[in-house]
């Protein structure tokens, strides 16, 4: 497969995943704003949302006021924000358009249809749009695209590159979400596991549609340790770090098999998976959750860089 084709498929998948994360954050932020909060009103929480996407600074530069309406605009519609739903879905569609013939008709229809609807939303008067509807629309659109992809696309190398894109992005997003909760909401290490921040942790579960998964998987009271286990180490939960890494390892193994040669990409990915398999929540808390997540994100990024070098640049490793 042409390296550039693989690259477009990979980025298409990453942007779809990214759009979904932004919508999830926006939804959680909006919901949070409805709750009474002792620690400084809604303001802090919105800042947390922006921090999670790494866009607090450009936001403050453009809008002086951190209010809900501005944040909704910024996260959903603003094309100046590279991770807004609008920017991500446009980029996903542009990537798809370039390699249209590498996609099945249902996949293209789903992506192109989402883009046309998004433009319709863009033209709609803002007062007629509920933020929860926008978020739900985004999740539905992304799930439709992925569903079409999973159920119609040929299981060839293009399928694997797209799968690698989805899971690398998702691993990064989950790590970021956990980190922000930790970093912003638990300024002192002593708070971890203290139970003080219950509602915040619950919100984190909510942002990943994980409440039910949590209840199915764990007994007893909700603790930070259990939540951390679900989101980081539980291979059954489809957004956990380990599940994502395991997933891209499988895709990379498929590539190694069909190309009949393994590369540095398989090596770094499997090393990361082995370490996650061996890890325990206790060790993670001991190292420091933030430190652990920072280390994970940089190793996940290393996998991305290696995939780029080995497969997407078109030169032999």
């Amino acid at each position, binding site marked *: 497969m042409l*390296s*550039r084709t693989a690259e477009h498929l990979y980025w298409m998948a990453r942007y779809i995943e990214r759009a979904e994360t932004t919508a999830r954050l926006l939804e959680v932020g909006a919901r949070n704003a409805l709750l009474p909060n002792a620690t400084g009103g809604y303001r802090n929480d919105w800042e947390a949302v922006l921090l999670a996407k790494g866009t607090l600074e450009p936001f403050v530069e453009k809008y002086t006021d951190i209010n809900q309406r501005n944040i909704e605009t910024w996260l959903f519609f603003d094309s100046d924000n590279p991770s807004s739903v609008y920017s991500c879905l446009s980029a996903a569609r542009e990537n798809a358009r370039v390699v249209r013939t590498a996609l099945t008709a249902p996949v293209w229809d789903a992506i192109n249809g989402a883009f046309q609807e998004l433009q319709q939303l863009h033209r709609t008067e803002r007062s007629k749009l509920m933020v929860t509807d926008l978020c739900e629309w985004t999740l539905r659109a992304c799930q439709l695209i992925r569903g079409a992809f999973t159920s119609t696309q040929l299981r060839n190398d293009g399928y694997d590159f797209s799968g690698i894109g989805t899971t690398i992005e998702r691993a990064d997003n989950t790590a970021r979400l956990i980190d922000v909760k930790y970093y912003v909401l638990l300024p002192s290490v002593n708070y971890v596991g203290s139970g003080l921040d219950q509602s915040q942790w619950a919100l984190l579960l909510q942002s990943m549609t994980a409440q039910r998964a949590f209840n199915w998987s764990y007994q007893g009271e909700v603790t930070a340790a259990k939540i951390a286990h679900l989101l980081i180490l539980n291979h059954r939960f489809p957004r956990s770090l380990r599940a994502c890494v395991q997933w891209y390892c499988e895709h990379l193994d498929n590539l190694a098999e069909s190309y009949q040669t393994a590369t540095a990409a398989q090596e770094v990915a499997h090393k990361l998976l082995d370490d996650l398999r061996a890890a325990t929540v206790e060790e993670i808390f001991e190292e420091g959750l933030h430190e652990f997540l920072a280390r994970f994100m940089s190793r996940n990024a290393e996998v991305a860089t290696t995939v780029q070098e080995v497969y997407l640049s*078109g030169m032999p490793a």
Partner: protein
Amino acid sequence: MSATKPAIFNEMLNGEQVRSAYQNLEKWYRSMPAELRSLKQSEAEALFRRVGITFAVYGEGGDPERLIPFDMFPRVMTAEEWRKLDRGVRQRAAALNAFLADVYDRREIIRAGKIPEHLVTNNEAFEKAAIGFRPPRGVFSHIVGVDLVRTGPDQFYVLEDNCRTPSGVSYMLQNREIMMRMFPQLFMESRIRPVDGYAGLLKKTLASVAPQKCQGEPNIVILTPGHFNSAYYEHSFLADLMGVELVEGQDLFVEGDFVWMKTTEGPKKVDVIYRRIDDAFIDPLCFRPDSMLGVPGLMSVYRSGGVTICSAPGAGVADDKAIYTFVPEMIRFYLGEEPILENVPTWQCAKPDDCKYVLENLSELVVKEVHGSGGYGMLVGPKSDKSTIESFAAKIRKNPDNYIAQPTLALSACPTFVEEGIAPRHVDLRPYCLVGETIELVPGGLTRVALTEGSLVVNSSQGGGVKDTWVLAE
């Protein structure tokens, strides 16, 4: 030139009678309720939009993904009419290729005094880097698009030749797909020759000109300027149909004696490049140094026989409007045959006598720029007011070499759907001739239609539409 307005040939009618080739269609049209028609029309548009056949015009702004209007009323050719066009177009494609092989080699036709040397060597499209190089099978132009117009039951004229990278063939294929999907009954009742062999034939043609150094199955690619190009849809469509890679310049590189493409499994050798970018951009080392679209070093691999480029660099010299007048001469010179298809009589403003005539008769003539295309920079005398004609005359006087003139032909018209029902609209025809080991033509082509009443300009950039083109079986 006669001053009286010539009668327009309506392809459906013979006097008051409906010609037999159109009888099925006429019945079909009469029995179609108005609601069904508008339903089908919007269905067609939705299909086009969904498969993504769009067309953008550079510099016009607006919607970059706009649709070319599709008219549902097909244009029909009888088997007998087609036989003549088929022979005529293939003859022309053969002569044009013989001419190209000659002007980059011994230049016999110039030595024989049939074509003035300066018209060839001073031509912008004449490629010095191609001199002395014989591409595989001596073929320079592998896809020749011949634009034809009709003025009467038996009168066809060649308006121009396109030897570089004629576009529009994806419309020929998609128009047919959509018509078959929407009106299957029509196809059961008529005997219409299929066109869907085009992609297979194109692949066979490209494979047949693989370089000598190529062992085994040649690796064919289509080289596109990228997805911002107005014809990108066509590039990806053809790549998909042929099952070959669609590459951009950045996907290719030169190493050793070959061209390679960057794949997820490492470099893979490329043997045949069907390029859809202009000569000037294919190799920044050889032509425009600022080109980001091409592949540095491509020309030297080409010249050493490591890769075939289709069409060959320099093929454009044969389709220039100034060379056009000499095509009948080429046919006689190289093939020893009489031309089957006629040229439109053409006055060359470069010749003082011709120029004088043109300036005196501007209101009756169509004047074109020698290197222009797309219907831009031309004057349609009978449709222009006095001041437009005067300012155009000034341009001709200033630079006569840049213009040619032709009589305003009474282009044939074909029934076309309009608000009130059907009405005749002017059409032209572009068949696509494939030249490799053999010279072949699928039975059909792209019919373009000027949708505005009375208009003669069929270019899609100027409000033209397209129609399905039927060739009836014997």
